[in-house]
């Protein structure tokens, strides 16, 4: 009986190690999220949209939510009224460094308008490339916002260095 039990313990132990995936040296993906929805359109629905989006990203990455004013100050975009979907990666590179210990892997700019059934996203995964995402004519359900968050995270991994 004792030998059988010992074998069972060994089997369970090996299964536990097999099922536990360990990546040596890995770290979390660091994503900055900035709400760039025009201030006049920021209502309760819009805030819920942003919260759901942030929650979706947070389930797969470490999120740093940065206020628009702070972002614009760092990115030197204070007086830039041009649509952010047209911005290039170097335009926002200055905002990537949070402090002397943290630089985010990806910057995600969000304009979420539930009433207009539209979302604009700009993902900046490195210092030279951007990814523009646009959803139109679709009610912003939780499932859709989660899909958008998953998509933003997918592109945020593009230049990830562990």
């Amino acid at each position, binding site marked *: 009986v004792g030998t059988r039990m010992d074998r069972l313990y060994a089997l369970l132990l090996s299964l536990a190690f097999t099922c536990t995936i360990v990546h040596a040296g890995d770290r979390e993906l660091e994503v900055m999220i900035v709400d760039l929805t025009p201030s006049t359109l920021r209502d309760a629905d819009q805030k819920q949209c942003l919260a759901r989006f942030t929650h979706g990203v947070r389930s797969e990455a470490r999120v740093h939510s940065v206020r628009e004013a702070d972002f614009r100050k760092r990115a030197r975009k204070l007086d830039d009224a041009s649509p952010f979907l047209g911005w290039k990666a170097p335009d926002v590179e200055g905002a990537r460094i949070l402090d002397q210990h943290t630089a985010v892997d990806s910057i995600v700019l969000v304009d979420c308008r539930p009433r207009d059934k539209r979302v604009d996203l700009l993902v900046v995964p490195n210092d030279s490339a951007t990814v523009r995402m646009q959803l139109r004519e*679709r009610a912003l359900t939780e499932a859709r916002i*989660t899909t958008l968050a998953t998509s933003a995270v997918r592109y945020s991994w593009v230049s990830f260095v562990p």
Partner: protein
Amino acid sequence: MGDQMEISDNPSRGRHRRVSFALLAAVWVLSCLCSPFQAAPADAGVVVKRPALRLIVLRDSAELLASEQRALSQVARVLAGRFTLDRTPASPAEESFLRGCTPGPCAAKALPPGFGASHTVLVLRVAPYAGEEKGKRRSGGFADVLLFRGSAPAPVFQILADNGASLPVQSDPLGVWLSDLVATLGKED
């Protein structure tokens, strides 16, 4: 036999083994729950009419690399598990229309004839080769994703990626992500 009796008669050791067993079982169950495996759908026996989806691949290079073909086959296989998949290549008029949508917005004011016949259309653009490595051409990855629904001459959803932000062809699980994307974002309200 005497040893076995001694083991089972020792309450402290028996309790220790039971606790160890419980802890190991808990670790195993938790770690398996956290793994990416998914259970088969419970209603596998129910026949459900799958929505129609057309998949169009646009390529910026003369031909697809083997790695790109493999990745696209995997994507098509996953999509075919959820949709009635139509892989009819784009006609010259459709290709011209779609090229006018990248980098967007779509230049044409109407869809080419027959484009929306299958109602939902997913377009994947394969980026140009990203140079060579050890004498072999390197894939530029998947750049743009466009999703058309109905007769609107503009995508309901689009991802336009600079070539430096393309998804690598070996991104996993690309097919599952695209399948979810079509199912949630393409669905009619």
